[in-house]
């Protein structure tokens, strides 16, 4: 059976909108964010994200695990970006060294040296804030939307019945997959399987993951066959469909959509005019 994220009515800002309006706003937000590399512009998007997060009324303990995972992930990649400067080289030509850290030891005749440059620093910071804005807006979705509305949201956005119901099932597949994974993990642990003790080369490691991957995959396939049978037995897809749930736009929803569209159009215009490219504050360039 498909599991859904538990829905709690929190009377928060995000929940006060029609979910369709929010999805449109969210899409504009995403598109706007990825246009810019300028730290100052990104701060604007970051503050929108923070506004929704801090008004979401989701207790920290409910979302702490998701946040810790995402923060860990983002920090890891930001630091990696910072250390290597990878990805940023297309955005800037010269680099201005701020300090140079030289290790007082050698590895195989090579002295590890870290060039901290103004460009690398700003690139890492911009990347951090950009990904963080997107992640924090996305993380709110499962905690804020009513799973019973998934189908009608997509239908309401203009997708055909079948596709909309398919999206509904897909959204619910994510937590279901999580549950199946932890059940399988438990079952294999009870057979003496210890994932911590994976060793050997890459191929050997993947092979040792089979006890987890195979049952979870098979379960997903068998589960979808059951779902198809259950849908067939109740006449799914024979014609146009009535949706029991109803969503209605209110004034505030149109306002939200308008704000989203304005942000996106303004972002595109600014970008075409040449604003919002990678930026390093003057004082760092010395």
């Amino acid at each position, binding site marked *: 059976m498909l599991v859904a994220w538990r829905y709690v009515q929190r009377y928060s800002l995000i929940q006060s909108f029609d979910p369709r309006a929010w999805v449109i706003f969210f899409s504009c937000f995403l598109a706007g964010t990825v246009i810019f590399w300028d730290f100052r512009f990104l701060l604007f998007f970051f503050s929108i994200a923070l506004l929704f997060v801090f008004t979401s009324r989701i207790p920290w303990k409910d979302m702490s695990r998701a946040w810790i995972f995402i923060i860990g992930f983002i920090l890891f990649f930001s630091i990696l970006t910072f250390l290597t400067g990878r990805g940023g080289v297309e955005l800037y030509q010269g680099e201005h060294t701020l300090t140079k850290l030289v290790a007082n030891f050698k590895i195989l005749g090579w002295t590890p040296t870290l060039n901290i440059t103004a460009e690398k620093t700003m690139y890492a910071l911009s990347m951090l804030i950009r990904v963080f804005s997107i992640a924090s807006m996305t993380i709110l979705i499962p905690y804020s939307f009513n799973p019973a509305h998934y189908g009608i949201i997509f239908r309401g956005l203009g997708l055909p019945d079948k596709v909309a119901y398919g999206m509904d099932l897909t959204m619910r597949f994510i937590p279901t997959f999580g549950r199946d994974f932890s059940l399988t993990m438990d079952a294999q642990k009870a057979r003496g399987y210890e994932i911590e003790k994976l060793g050997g080369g890459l191929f050997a490691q993947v092979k040792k993951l089979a006890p987890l991957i195979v049952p979870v995959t098979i379960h997903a396939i068998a589960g979808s066959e059951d779902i198809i049978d259950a849908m067939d*037995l109740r*006449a799914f897809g024979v014609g146009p469909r009535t949706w029991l749930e109803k969503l209605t736009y209110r004034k505030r929803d149109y306002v939200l959509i308008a704000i989203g569209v304005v942000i996106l159009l303004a972002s595109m215009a600014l970008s075409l005019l040449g604003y919002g490219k990678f930026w390093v504050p003057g004082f760092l360039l010395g």
Partner: protein
Amino acid sequence: MSGDKPLVIEDLNFRYHSRETLAIKNISLSVDAGQVLLIAGASGCGKTTLARCINGLVPRSYKGDLTGQILLNGKDVTKLSLAQVSQIVGTVLQDPERQILGTKVANEVAFGLENLSLPREEIIERVAEALDHLKIPQLLNRETFHLSGGEKQKVALAGVLAMRPSILLLDEPLASLDPASAQDALDIIRSLADEGMTVLMVEHRVEDVLRIHPENAIFMMDGQIKYYGPTSGFDKSVNYHEVKLPAEMIIERAKDDPAPERLTTLRKESVVGRGKQMGEPLVKFEDIAFWYEEGRPVLHDVNFTINRGDVIAVLGPNGAGKTTLVKHAIGLLKPKSGRMTIDGKDSSQTSVAQIAQTLGYVFQSPSHMLFAPTVEEELAFGPTNLKHSTEAIPHEVANALEIVNLKGHEKYPPLALSFGQQKRVSIAAILAMQSKILVMDEPTAGQDYKNYLGFMDSILQMPGFDAILFITHDIDMAVIYANRVIMVNDGTLVCDAKPAEALKDFDFLRKNRLVPTSLLKTNLDLLPKTGRFYSAEELAHVVH
């Protein structure tokens, strides 16, 4: 056409494209409105295929060669669309978990009506009507995921009834329910039939179904009908080893047959724990409490000890905390308060893999653990993880396969086996680990009567176990196999005693959503004479 019977089947044969032999052969039957037809048989007898032919999944979703005719209200089923069939035949599958699609009860019950594109107002009306009919209107806005097993089954039924079918097809509807929920479901089914619904019920728990007096019954074997007629003649014609008949019927029939090979005498003084100091504590639960959310304990004040020689049946309603309780024994869950010791070691300081060396845990669902390309490799996985010697492993594997009656299947891919066989592979996979303590969560679920008696017999005869504990919904399992019964309700132990003591008070049983079975009643009646509990086959020879 008026006057047509709701269902007529003439000379039906079907072969799945993936198989070489016919799944069902020469099936002919007819059912009148307002009647209940019981379709019984062991797993693999073709009853599920027959059900799929009737509800139209065969040949639409399951391809194959179909000959013969199925008429629904006089109309040929192959000429109808699946949508039309679904308005005539409402199907409730074995496991409501596999049928429920909606996140909320309202959405679930409305699903079929939405697909038929009825106006919203009518859908809302019909949903309320279906829920009222089953006396569950209070569930309307609940999330389906958080319902109990019995509630899920009723909601699935409501979703089908809302479409107003004239035939109700139930495929083992009792399999996942606790006894009291099963009885509720049966009562509802009978009253639906009395209101004019035609009910087809596929079930091997015949004893339970007989309580609602089906008008006719079919017994199937190897894809063919072996008996078809009034239920009164049913017990004479069926193989009582294959389906579960009421105890009195089995006793009547079995007394003319040779005595069972192993009488319970062997079993009760079973080999479990033999040759060592009996009664030595192995697993200790001390003041165990557990919760997922503070303030809502799933378990509280749990105190008991598994001793050497114990064969414990854990009984209790769906959602009482039975699985949570036994997951502590293998350390998958660590108590929030209290102390859990396994073989003298505190579970909080031991990994699951370490505990697995002494305690084998068989999960409820085989599909969460089977992964290997062959049965043999599947069974070797546990012992290999536990670093058993390469000489010992083939021997352990062969032994385990023998017990679950799957010899000859060594090279089969476990995932290609039937559900019942997969379940037995999952039990064998733990048996091969040679743990001293065996813990099983619902070992008999999805098994037919013959198979589960077979492997439970063998497991209890298997040397090397110091103690066995199993969770079950089936009181008869406790009657036949256990020497100790633990009842769990609302997260704590409400009873811990010998079976004859624990199961004698029927009011107490009902309070814990258990329903006394004919075997239990017969055993209690005969207890002064027999001195302890026996299986029905054995009673036939012990008493007579």
